[in-house]
């Protein structure tokens, strides 16, 4: 490239390094990581991610310097077939830089946190060798995510899309040979497979959308597609956008494909925070925002997107109320918040959606990582208690059952689990909120961080969550009353389940000796949390709804066009704030005033009865899917394998028809004369001749170097002779 170009495009030439830095990190760790200490491995991975963050910052500076103009950096040719020409081109505009900053910024903090977290996790699970593998996967994820957000075409986006899906699979199944309580089982593998398959369904939709797009537009490149958005038939765009919605539902965990995300909590907590809360699952929101020119053409599709998002938001929020696992609550909360974002972008409120995406990345990462800190703290307490009391023999047994992450109490759909749970039925679960209580005193730092995250998520001013959620609600109130009320009720539940969690985890008395002995986490974990907490408090400043602010809105305008800047509507803001306060008050009445005792039934269960049972069991969606998809699928497979394949094709067709015919023909045609005198003789003759010939030929290789040299000389003489005579 020429110097003059550099001057014009600022740091644009660094764009490919968004991907290269994490790849370099993963190569270093993958190849040399075995010889490096854990500290070095973590440092390399964090530096790689941090370098990507620095690049993102420089690109941000460049883009703001050029007034948000979309810039491209062509790296290499990719596919050139006929009229289709696709390249590895990085697109840097205000939308993609926003995503880059979130991904690499939050990603780097989580890398640092994971150094501390995985250090203990691999020891509790007694396989320290996997520390390196974790960071290799994590860097791979950052690289894939960067491809996703910086691609200049739908196909490049799809490469990243599949890449992050792969990393998600690898990291959910990180402890693939055990369940979340470290008992030998295939539960974690099954969770990973579930995530992968649910995502395949979504990706299938995305692929169909891609095929239709190529059929209709003849290109995958963003600008080329958007330029023709008004020329292509309306129905075609509806089809494309709706198939794309299936992809979004898979990746961003919306109804009906959300079921994988709660199970994805089988992965280590930093993974839950990075992939399954802050970044990867928001890819769907990014996709819709990126495709804004397509969606804004078809209002029907927009309405469906908004409705799906709003229903998901409420539905998941109700399930979160009935969960006992600290990470499961957050998982359903993530689904619910993703519903908010999808609803927002569905309504055309792209700025509100992206705003919530950013703030949610801050406070949900904070919450997940704090939850990880809580779980490790309880785990340490349990370890402590086990050491203090147990006899050496049972201590070993307990060490095997030891566990540091979220868990699944009921693994009904999992047949492999049976042998394990019978053996270790009393395994301690450090992620169960019923085992916690009173952690405010033992883990004060984590407590305050968790409080900040909770308030931000519950949407109390002036924390980040309030501003972004309020903007979505405000847009919804302008757009559709149905969606507005769905989201408002969802926000109410959000505040309630977060309040419930706070009271259950941090207040009252310890309900288990492990919680009583819980210990605070080290600095390497808490410092990134503090940064995230600061962002959770101040993140709202990105897009304050006052005249002269709306920074994010104006920033994104460069990419997605004119955005209506809404002010602060006191009615909407007031309703949501009051509802949130009421929800927290109710949760205090239920869980805070009279803290739960050990073994006590959830007080909400007494009041709501069967409804709470429904929430607790996730409205039996898994069982429903099992009944309408998995069981028929198994039956059809069985039918195909046993009846069609084995009995019909093998027993009847193959054995009777083909074999019978063949026997008959051979009886006629291959009697002694034709067979032994004719065919056998030829075959044997060939064999004998080959043997003799090879025996002769073998003598040529006699092992004497000099005779080899003579052969070479013969060859030289022949070749030169040919040249002479030519």
């Amino acid at each position, binding site marked *: 490239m020429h110097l003059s170009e550099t001057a014009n495009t600022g740091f644009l030439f660094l764009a490919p390094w968004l991907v290269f830095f994490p790849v370099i990190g993963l190569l270093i760790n993958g190849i040399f990581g075995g010889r490096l200490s854990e500290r070095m491995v973590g440092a390399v991975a964090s530096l790689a991610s941090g370098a990507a963050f620095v690049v993102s910052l420089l690109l941000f500076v460049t883009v703001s310097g050029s007034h948000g103009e979309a810039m491209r950096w062509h790296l290499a040719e990719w596919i050139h077939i006929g009229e289709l020409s696709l390249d590895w081109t990085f697109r840097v505009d205000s939308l993609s830089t926003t995503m880059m900053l979130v991904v690499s910024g939050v990603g780097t903090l989580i890398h640092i946190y994971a150094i501390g977290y995985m250090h203990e996790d691999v020891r509790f699970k007694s396989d320290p060798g996997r520390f390196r593998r974790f960071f290799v996967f994590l860097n791979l994820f950052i690289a894939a995510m960067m491809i996703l957000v910086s691609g200049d075409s739908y196909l490049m986006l799809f490469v990243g899309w599949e890449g992050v899906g792969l990393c998600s699979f690898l990291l959910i199944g990180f402890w693939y040979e055990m369940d979340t309580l470290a008992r030998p089982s295939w539960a974690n593998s099954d969770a990973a497979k579930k995530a992968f398959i649910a995502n395949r369904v979504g990706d299938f939709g995305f692929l169909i959308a891609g095929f239709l797009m190529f059929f209709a537009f003849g290109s995958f490149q963003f600008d080329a597609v958007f330029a023709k958005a008004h020329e292509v038939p309306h129905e075609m765009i509806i089809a494309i956008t709706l198939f794309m919605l299936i992809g979004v539902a898979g990746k961003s965990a919306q109804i009906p494909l959300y079921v994988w995300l709660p199970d994805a909590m089988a992965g280590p907590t930093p993974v839950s925070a990075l992939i399954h809360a802050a970044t990867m699952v928001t890819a769907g929101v990014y996709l819709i925002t990126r495709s804004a020119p397509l969606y804004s053409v078809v209002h029907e599709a927009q309405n469906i997107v908004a409705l799906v998002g709003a229903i998901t938001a409420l539905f998941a929020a109700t399930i979160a109320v009935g969960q006992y696992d600290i990470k499961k609550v957050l998982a359903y909360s993530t689904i619910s918040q993703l519903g908010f974002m999808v609803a927002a972008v569905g309504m055309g409120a792209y700025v509100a959606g992206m705003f919530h995406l950013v703030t949610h990345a801050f406070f949900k990462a904070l919450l997940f990582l704090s939850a990880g800190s809580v779980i490790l703290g309880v785990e340490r307490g349990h370890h402590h208690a086990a050491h203090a009391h147990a006899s050496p023999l049972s201590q070993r047994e307990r060490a095997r059952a030891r566990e540091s992450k979220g868990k699944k109490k009921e693994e009904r759909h999992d047949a492999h689990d049976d042998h394990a749970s019978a053996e270790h039925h009393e395994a301690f679960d450090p992620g169960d909120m019923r085992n916690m209580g009173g952690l405010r005193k033992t883990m004060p730092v984590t407590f305050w961080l968790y409080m900040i995250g909770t308030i931000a998520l519950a949407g109390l001013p002036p924390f980040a969550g309030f501003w972004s959620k309020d903007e979505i609600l405000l847009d919804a109130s302008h757009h559709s009353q149905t969606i507005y009320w769905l989201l408002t009720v969802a926000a109410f539940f959000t505040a309630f389940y977060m309040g419930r969690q706070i009271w259950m985890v941090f207040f009252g008395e310890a309900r288990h000796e492990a919680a009583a002995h819980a210990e605070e986490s080290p600095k390497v974990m808490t410092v990134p949390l503090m940064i995230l907490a600061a962002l959770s408090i101040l993140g709202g400043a990105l897009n304050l709804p006052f005249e002269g602010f709306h920074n994010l809105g104006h920033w994104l305008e460069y990419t997605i066009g004119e955005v209506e800047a809404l002010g602060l509507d006191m009615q909407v803001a007031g309703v949501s704030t009051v509802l949130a306060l009421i929800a927290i008050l109710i949760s205090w009445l239920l869980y805070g005033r009279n803290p739960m005792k050990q073994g006590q039934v959830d007080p909400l269960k007494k009041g709501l009865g069967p409804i709470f049972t429904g929430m607790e069991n996730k409205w039996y969606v898994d069982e429903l899917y099992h009944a309408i998809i998995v069981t028929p699928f198994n039956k059809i497979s069985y039918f195909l394998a046993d009846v069609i394949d084995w009995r019909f094709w093998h027993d009847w067709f193959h054995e009777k028809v083909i074999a019978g015919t063949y026997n008959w023909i051979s009886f006629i045609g291959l009697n002694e004369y034709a067979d032994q005198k004719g065919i056998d003789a030829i075959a044997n003759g060939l064999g004998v001749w080959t043997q003799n010939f090879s025996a002769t030929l073998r003598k040529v290789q006699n092992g004497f170097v000099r005779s080899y040299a003579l052969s070479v000389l013969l060859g030289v003489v022949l070749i030169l*002779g040919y040249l002479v005579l030519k």
Partner: protein
Amino acid sequence: MTLDLALFLLLALIAIASALGMLLSKNAVYSALYLVLNFVTVAVFYLLLGAPFIAMAQITVYAGAIMVLFLFVIMLLGTDELPKSQVLPWQRPLAIVLSVLLAAEATFLLVTKARPAGNVLQPDESVNTMENLRQLGMLLFTDYLLPFEVVSILLLVAMVGAIILTKKEKGAR
């Protein structure tokens, strides 16, 4: 017949005779010494061709260093004559026939097809001077700098390789 040609023929005779001496000597020490003589005559040819630097390099590196190395190794391994061998009885006649053919073909091709137009330059006063050497040196250290450095690394590697090959491994024997 000019003086040049007479000198050439004389030297060529010496070169061929010494090469045959190398080939036919029973004793490896004699072979090595014949080869030294051959190398020296080739060095004189280089001088005749106006390549004094190569001639000197030939004498110091080939006739000097390399052949001394050979003599050392011969002394190390002994000069015992090898016993008569009955294997490969056809090797010798075939080799001679093919070699003669090769010589004929190579000469024919080189002289008729691969030969550049013109005759060998007569070495004049300008050739065997410092100026000639200076030009060669300039070329070596400008256009051919990279190959030059690569060759220096190659020599280092060969040195290390030779040491490692002949080093006695601890406990191996």
